[in-house]
């Protein structure tokens, strides 16, 4: 048992959550045979993609040692613009709007990063403020609770590329491919270094400002992308929808094994964390509990994973070759 725990602790940060996710999928398959079919998994992935995107951006900010609450506002704003400004019929006409909305997301991120660095504000407080401001702008643009987006959005989001890969799966693969590359770049090392130890990073010639700008810009980009995806899946925009994704985005990051202290973790873990959160509803339903229990279960899993991580680290330390001397 200790050997197994030790091996898990030495595995990458996404190891333990992957075990949890697989266990959940197996449990679902046992309770409802046929659940692990390809089409079913595609549906699951599509459902989870909005959370996956917003949490992917959150991961990068957390690796930098910050936190980005404004992603909720950015997501809402993206759907609000999609619902009110993109009165076009064809996909080709949508493309410029895609770019515009993503650029707006990046700009919001750049403003966050500049203010965090320039004013030396706590990221939590600053992004709480920008969350409020951006949400307000979303309400100004779309002053009703919900509005449909032009059908072209829906078609784009549910297309199958080359009659082979559905758009959500394609996006997920693109995200994971991008991350597999980006995590090994100097830029990612600098972001992690700055998140791990700002003083050490500075002495290693890392610009604390530029890493902040990059991390929050990516977070803004992914939040806007999450908004676009949400609009394309539901066919609607809403100036308030982002709020319900803010806390889950952080939960997915933590469940995925990324340290809130910065420097450690990655998007692969976050994707697994988001899928876990997404599966909870299914498990609750299959067990026969009311769906109100979903949030209780999410909380318990969050606490469980956070408690498990240090235990695994200790087990890994024990199985490592014994080294005397003060640690």
């Amino acid at each position, binding site marked *: 048992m200790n050997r197994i725990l030790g091996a898990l602790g030495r595995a990458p940060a996404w190891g333990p959550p992957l075990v949890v996710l697989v266990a959940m999928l197996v449990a679902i398959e046992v309770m409802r045979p046929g659940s692990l079919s390809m089409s079913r998994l595609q549906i699951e992935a599509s459902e989870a993609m909005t959370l996956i995107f917003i949490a992917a951006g959150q991961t990068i900010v957390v690796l930098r040692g910050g936190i980005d609450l404004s992603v909720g506002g950015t997501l809402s704003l993206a759907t609000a613009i999609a619902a009110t400004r993109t009165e076009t019929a064809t996909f080709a006409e949508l493309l410029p709007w895609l770019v515009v909305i993503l650029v707006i997301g990046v700009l919001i991120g750049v403003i966050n990063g500049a203010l965090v660095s320039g004013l030396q504000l706590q990221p939590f407080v600053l992004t709480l403020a920008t969350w409020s401001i951006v949400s307000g702008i979303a309400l100004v643009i779309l002053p009703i609770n919900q509005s449909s987006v032009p059908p072209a959005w829906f078609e784009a989001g549910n297309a199958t590329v080359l009659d082979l890969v559905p758009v959500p799966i394609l996006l997920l693969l693109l995200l994971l491919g991008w991350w597999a*590359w980006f995590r*090994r*770049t*100097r830029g990612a*090392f600098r972001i*992690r*270094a700055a*998140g*791990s*130890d700002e*003083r*050490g*990073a*500075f*002495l*290693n*010639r*890392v610009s604390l400002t530029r890493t902040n700008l990059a991390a929050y810009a990516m977070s803004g980009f992914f939040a806007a992308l999450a908004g676009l995806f949400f609009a394309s899946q539901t066919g609607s925009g809403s100036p308030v929808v982002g709020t319900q994704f803010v806390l889950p985005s952080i939960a997915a990051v933590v469940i995925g094994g990324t340290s809130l202290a910065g*420097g*450690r973790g990655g998007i692969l873990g976050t994707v697994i964390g988001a899928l876990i959160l997404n599966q909870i509803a299914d498990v609750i339903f299959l067990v026969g509990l009311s769906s109100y229990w979903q949030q209780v279960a999410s909380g318990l899993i969050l606490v469980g994973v956070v408690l498990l991580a240090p235990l695994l680290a200790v087990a890994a*330390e024990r199985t*490592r070759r*014994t*080294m*005397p*001397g*003060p*640690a």
Partner: protein
Amino acid sequence: MDDAPQLQAEAITKRFGGIVALDQMHFAAAAGEVHAILGENGAGKSTFIGILAGAVRADEGRVTVGGRPYLPLSPVDAAAAGIATVLQELSLIPDLTVAENVWFGSEDLTPLRTVDRRRIEARTRALFSDLGLPGIDPGTPLRSLSLGQRQLVEIAKALSSNARILILDEATSALLPAQVDWLLRTARARADAGALVLYISHRLAEVRRIADRVTVLRNGQTVGTEAMADLADGEIVSMMLGRRLVSLYPARVATATDRIALQVDAFTVAPRLHDVDFALHEGEILGVAGLEGHGQREMFLGLFGAIRAHGQVSIGGRPVTIRSPRHAMSAGIGMVLLPEDRRQQGLLLTKTVRENLVLSALGKVARFGVIDPRAEAAMVERGMQRTQVKADTPEQLAGTLSGGNQQKVVLAKLLETGARILLFYDPTRGVDVGTKAEMFTMMRDLAANGYAILFYSTDLAELANVADRTLVLSYGSVSSVLAGADVTEDRILAATMAGGARGAVVPAGSIA
């Protein structure tokens, strides 16, 4: 040695708020020499190093490197000017691997512009074997290395750049003797090859072995630069301290009584400490010596109840089982631990001296759960006086005090609990010579007042001059008990070797 200065600093002034850290300081050193910079904490050494490393900007003055003006705005400029620094507080990133740390910012890239892990690990292996530094796997995450190993990595990183100016700031603080020898040899080789090595250390013996010349700073000013061979240790110390020259060690007056304060039998902390027996008397300072990793840490933490231990412990003749640090500090036991790392263990840097002092004895100054300001003020005054804390007011933030004064606040706080058995675990690490002298005097005073003191130090000279008796730990057991001046580096090393029969424990990170 080339006579034109490779590094020259003139009239450097740096203020932090109202405090003048450097005051018209000047400095010159030539290529090919090892130049030591000495001074008490607060003398301005760190600020000067910070300016050279590009981490701090001077307010006034000018620096030239190789005759050309040098005005670093950031560490980027320092690297460009050929200056590499090993900092006391390491600049490594715990979440990256050894190789990623060594080559940070100059990594080899694959065609996809990602960091080429295999290549940097191979280069790290080559670097380590060039430097004669085996035993550290380049792929290990830095956080799983011991402090000493991290220090070696930081040194290797600085050496990797073949810098014109190599700055070693307390680079040996966590190294084993063999590793210190290695560093001194390597630094000398770099100087012989034409580099300028700046060597900063609190350990005078090391400085004497390596330095050609020495510059002494005091209160932000340069006292003087002399050839090392021309100065006796006493002269160096008096240059550092100015006119208030005191002997570093107080006279050793035997104050030990025959009343046993702490009796320990068959004390074991698996797997690093076995069957240790000793008796600590009231009024006695009992030294503990040993190379890093030979069980002293386990002994102190085990006695203090911080880690699980086995064996018989008696306090004042009464058998006790100490369950936790809280239990150890309680009235029935009366034992406190003064740790080596003030920041991590014991001091709240962002709180005032007053708040720190009363923290562990709040019950004594409170009535019905509310703090009585008069009782509090009395306790604070008594505490600051007892350990001679140098602070402007009790409202000064602990973080703004010098290292030695922080240590005194911690001690004052611990004494407030009424403890009579004091465990001092390497209390002088990183403490300057003046404060050390005050601490030793204070320890002798405490002993004279009947306190029983167990004192571990990595500096054997301190044990030889302060402790009444010294236990030498070797591979987890007591290999000998030496009295007073019999405690020498040679004797302890010999005692350590003698105890080496037990094969279970191997000292960490030794240089083959």
